[in-house]
């Protein structure tokens, strides 16, 4: 299940960069959303969460504030596992209204960014990811950037430390910019 998803993700990635015509044939969800979703999944493997942030059910709560455009690609992540934790996808309308869910990864999509507070408080054990310029300066930890048609990222190390998260050096090496 997971392998198939990854395979699909990589195929899509390849199509994005090497064969743009395929994108037209495959109807929405848009390729950009697929790539970004797979990046979200990949980040989970290069970040270490403190053990105390997981509840009794041991679920990894992926909270997405992105409207309905990511719905279909996010469904593929349901029941995937990260370090033995089963992924649970929570689609939120308001990043502050989690409805009692303890988020481990909070993705704030560009068009929902306005819902976020002016300054994102570094919450313990929450990896915040966005795809909008200035996300790091607002207190976000990872920001996805599009460079010459490729999705790259930048990391706010200080914020990560504050949140009690350890980011792999491999990830830092690939990072466009470090704060």
């Amino acid at each position, binding site marked *: 299940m997971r392998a198939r998803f990854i*395979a699909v993700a*990589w195929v899509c990635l*390849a199509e994005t960069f090497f064969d743009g015509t395929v994108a037209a044939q495959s109807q929405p969800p848009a390729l950009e959303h697929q790539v970004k979703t797979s*990046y979200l999944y*990949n980040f989970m*493997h*290069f970040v270490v969460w403190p053990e105390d942030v997981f509840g009794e059910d041991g679920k990894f709560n992926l909270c997405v504030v992105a409207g309905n455009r990511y719905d279909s690609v996010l469904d593929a992540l349901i029941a995937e596992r990260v370090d033995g934790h089963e992924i649970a996808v929570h689609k939120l309308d308001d990043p502050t209204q989690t409805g009692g869910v303890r988020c481990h990864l909070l993705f704030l999509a560009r068009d929902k960014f306005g819902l976020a507070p002016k300054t994102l408080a570094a919450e313990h054990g929450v990896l915040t990811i966005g795809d909008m310029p200035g996300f790091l300066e607002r207190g976000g930890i990872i920001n996805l950037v599009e460079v010459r048609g490729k999705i*790259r990222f930048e990391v706010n190390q200080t914020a990560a430390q504050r949140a009690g998260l350890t980011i792999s050096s*491999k990830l830092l090496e*690939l990072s466009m910019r470090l704060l």
Partner: protein
Amino acid sequence: MSTVARAFYNISLRWKAVIVMLGVTAISLILAVTGMLFHTRTAFERQMEQKLFLLADVIGSNSTAALAFNDPLAATETLAALSSDEHIIAGGLYDAQGNLFAQYRRPNVEAELPNAPRADQQMTIGGGRAEITRAIDLKGRTVGAVHLLADTSEWNDILWRFVAIAGILFVVVLTIGFFVSIALQRFVTEPVTDLVQLMRRIALEHDPSLRAVKRGNDELGVLVDGFNGMLDEIGKRRAELERARDQLRHHLSDLNSEVTERKRAEQQIRDLNEDLDRRVKERTAQLEASNAELEAFAYSVSHDLRAPLRGIDGFSGILLSEHAASLNPSGQALLQRVRQAAQRMAELIDDLLNLSRITRSQLTRQDVDIGALAIEVADELKNQNQNRNVQFTAAPDMHAWGDRNLLRVVLENLLGNAWKFTSKRPDARIEFGMKTDEPEPIYYVRDNGAGFDMAYARQLFNVFQRLHDVTEFPGTGIGLATVQRIIKKHGGRIWAQGVVAEGATIYFTLPRLGEQTATADSGANYSDRRTAR
């Protein structure tokens, strides 16, 4: 191969030992070097594999993020670290679909990176290249693969170094082995060469006291013991042989003297014999001469005596017939007795002449049907004595080898005697037969007449010997002597058996047919010898 083996047989023992030791050393060295080489190669391959896997794992591990976030530049940088190993020719990083994601190539080296290589647990090696493909895992899922290509030129260096070391080792070990085996071989070969030299000396000098020196209790020691034991034995045998030879020489000289003595004795005997022979011949000649003289005298006496006897008889007859009237009966009776005496004397003289004639006559032998001859004689006797009733039997088909006339004389005498001595018996029986179950045939004449006393058996055949009075049975007493003479002349024997008043049997033999030539040639001599016995 066989020529090599033959050549090896001709090499001296010491070089054989050296060659064997060096050969064994060389073979073990070759085996050891081969084993080492194999081990080195295996170790080299394992080391190469470990190195390549390690490198691939490091690169793979460092490239997970680059693969995850699609950053070929970062991956290429990671791959560039391969340049620090001069044997790595090329390296390739592939994504999960097998597409080449990033690569490294050593400058100025031709190398092909494969498309979508399959991850494998083993290195492929060959053609001077070694290749591995390693999967890249990220938290349990495969995100790509690393392919590494290395040259194995390092192996050639190792190999040449190995060969060089092996060559030096070979030279050094064989040189040392050569000197050590030269030093050691004498323990084996020296006793043997000593033995060989000793054997040569023994063959040349014939010194029985030479002995081999024993050095140890190994097989060569046993050989030396055996050799010395053999020499002891040979020495003992030689001494015995010499003693025996001395004895033999001694015996031989004894024998020689004995032989010469015996020869001398034989010569003496021969001389004596010759002397004796000569004397016998002389005596015989003398005897023969006197015998002949005597016989001639007897013959002439007998012959000459007949004339006066005839005169006496004749004139007595005339006196009786013409002057009977002038004589009285007693005178006539006396005259009659004179006549009878004269006639009897004439008979005697005739018989003596016969005997003498027989002695001088020559034998003419032939096959004689002696049975028929006997019947002939018996018939004549029957005719002369027709008043007698005599039952005569003769076995049929009896043959003898002898003088027919003389045998007739024999039968006339013997049958005549039998006729004469059975004259007092009314049932006279006379039998002539032959015994063939004896070594030689024995002829016999048997009668049931007056017989004789066996005490006088030997005197029967003497001249003028009579066992009966002439008035009882007439006869001159010369008959059996004549018979004996004839039988002895034939080389036969004659003897008699008898019981008084019951009968007598005269036996005689005649040499068989097979003995004829011997007797015919040396006739007289042979019979003489037989008689002498």
